[in-house]
């Protein structure tokens, strides 16, 4: 059980900076998920925490103590690798016992710890097998078991589910969150899959190009994305982005012109932009719905349909712009591809973002 603090952590490889001054505080018992597209530095950040890589500048603190110069083994962390990194020539039992043997723990104690972990992970029957004789999910559990027996202060998971098939991934997901509830340990979990992040995390850290874009609870990020990147990354199908232009501002609200000419008045948090400023309107597919009796704000040229029975997805181009949009409709739909339809929206869930690259929310 431990807290973790990162202070202005940077990392350079051969002069190329891959982590740019990350600050992060993880509370005791938190399940924190690092999420971001590949190459965003999330695995590197995990390795910096773990001690497998040294930070270039900044501090890593565990339980308030600076551990920059403490070796990976002595930081009291355990890591579950993407490839599991099980020792192929050792049995499941040996795999789990290896770390304990290395610190000279008495044999009987090792045995009881390994058996306990095996029971917890339902590996009892497999202890004498080798990793090659196990299925993907079982290997995953052995890797987790190897972490558990060491009773680490913090568990680190590096994309542990990416090698499993979809079905197994779902069940392992609940297994890991169940484990977190039982052990009440601090866990840091790296994934590129926003569904895993949404379903497992107490707190999500969204990373892009070595920078933290936003930290918050899953629904926080979903409902109040800090910028266009987070808005687009969290949620599936992705949020729709439509270019708009400011028509007029009045105090804390702004009226924007939508493609197709209609105006829409939305509240803004701080500093309403001047008239004529281009902005981006963000609206999630489930907050769009087919227009009835003239409340249409946008017009969609339907290109493709996905009827999933319980709900339907309508894809198309937004009339009057080159933006594309997806609409999530409950139940089944009679809309045809090639037709045009009016779209209304739940304006309480509409977001406005700056049109620049940073795309900060207004």
């Amino acid at each position, binding site marked *: 059980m431990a807290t973790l603090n990162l202070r202005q952590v940077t990392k350079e490889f051969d002069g190329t900076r891959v982590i740019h001054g990350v600050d992060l505080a993880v509370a005791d018992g938190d399940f924190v998920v690092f999420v971001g597209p590949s190459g965003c530095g999330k695995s590197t950040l995990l390795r910096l925490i*773990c001690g497998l890589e040294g930070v270039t500048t900044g501090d890593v603190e565990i339980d308030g103590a600076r551990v920059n110069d403490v070796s990976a*083994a002595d930081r009291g962390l*355990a890591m579950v690798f*993407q490839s599991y*990194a*099980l*020792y*192929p*020539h050792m049995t499941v039992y040996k795999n789990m016992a290896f770390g304990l043997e*290395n610190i000279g723990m008495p044999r009987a104690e090792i045995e009881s710890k390994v058996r306990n972990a095996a029971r917890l992970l339902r590996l009892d029957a497999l202890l004498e097998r080798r990793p090659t004789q196990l299925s993907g999910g079982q290997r995953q559990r052995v890797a987790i078991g190897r972490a558990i027996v060491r009773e680490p202060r913090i568990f680190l998971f590096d994309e542990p589910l990416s090698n499993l098939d979809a079905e197994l991934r779902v069940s392992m997901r609940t297994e890991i969150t169940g484990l977190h509830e039982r052990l009440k340990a601090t866990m840091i979990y790296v994934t590129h899959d926003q569904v895993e992040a949404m379903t497992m995390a107490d707190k999500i850290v969204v990373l892009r190009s070595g920078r933290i874009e936003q930290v918050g609870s899953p629904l926080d990020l979903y409902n109040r994305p800090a910028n266009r990147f987070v808005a687009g990354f969290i949620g599936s199908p992705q949020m729709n982005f439509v270019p708009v232009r400011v028509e007029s501002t009045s105090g804390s609200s702004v009226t924007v012109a939508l493609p197709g000419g209609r105006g829409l008045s939305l509240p803004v948090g701080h500093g309403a932009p001047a008239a004529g400023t281009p902005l981006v309107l963000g609206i999630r597919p489930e907050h769009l719905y087919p227009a009835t009796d003239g409340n249409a704000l946008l017009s969609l040229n339907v290109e493709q349909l996905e009827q999933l029975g319980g709900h339907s997805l309508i894809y198309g181009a937004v009339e009057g712009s080159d933006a594309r949009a997806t609409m999530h409709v409950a139940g089944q739909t009679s809309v045809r591809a090639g037709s045009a339809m009016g779209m209304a929206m739940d304006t309480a869930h509409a977001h406005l973002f700056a049109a620049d690259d940073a795309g900060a929310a207004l």
Partner: protein
Amino acid sequence: MTAFLTRTRGRGRLDWTDWFTYLYLALGLFLMFGPVAWLVLSSFKTESAIAEFPPRLLPMGQKQVVVPGEDKPKPVFRVKLPDGSVKELAELRRIGLTSTMVDPAKPDDLVRVPIDARTPVREFKLATENYTDLAAKFDFGQYLWNSVFITIVATIITLLFNSMAAFALSKYRFGGRKVVFLLILSTLMVPPTIVLVPNFLVVSELGLLNSLWGVIWPAVATPTGVFLLRQYMLTLPDELLEAARLDHASEWRIYWRIVLPLTAPALAVLAIFSVMWRWNDFLWPLVVLTKSEKFTLQLALNAFQGDLVTQWNYLLAMTVITLLPVTVVFAFLQKFITQGIASAGVK
């Protein structure tokens, strides 16, 4: 097996390519296997049979029978008797140009014939005494022990040293590791004869002349072995080592408990190579070992060829014995050898 050996290209009949292929294969078999077969067969010939002209392929000895009343078995000849009949008789003794013969069935009936009227009767006979005499006549056991000692000890040290070097070169990032690796590899291009004299001087200064260790030490660091093991270790995922490091394993323990067991296939290949190299090594032991009690089998073989007399029957028998271990190693482990050649691109 038969189906494999008699496989043809033409269906049911022989295509011209089949003729060509089988001819080619037969020729190859003869060229490669012929000398070995000749060696093995000749090693069972008596000294006189080896010197015989025209030479025969099979080891033949003169037929001998026990004649009642005589202590030793007597040689059998086919004799043309004065009356024109031909009989097989045993020769009791020979004086000058006359030979006294007897029919083993009628031991009292002596026949005297001129020696040019008789020809020896030959039969297939293995002169196993070539082998059994070896141990008694020469210090064969000592040579064998020297060879075995050098081969086994040098192989163990080779595996240990080369794997440690390969581990460092494949798994540690340090300045100049490419330079070190290239330096090691570049020694492959220096012919052994060039470093023979410097090596000799070093070994001599260390007082290792006429010591088996003088043969072992210069041979244990092989660039081929380092290269082969390094290439194999590169395929081991770094995550395994990192996992072990997190598991509080020291670097030595990572090497001993994780890397070495996982490199077993490559180690097997190197072990086979090393056994063959050390066992067949001739030039270096020849330079270092001058006392006959330190000779390896290869040196003993060489010493067998005297300036005046060479006992070919013993020499050939010893050659066969010397060839056996390597042949056995090759036969049973050829799968690993081909795998090793394929994985490292070395011979």
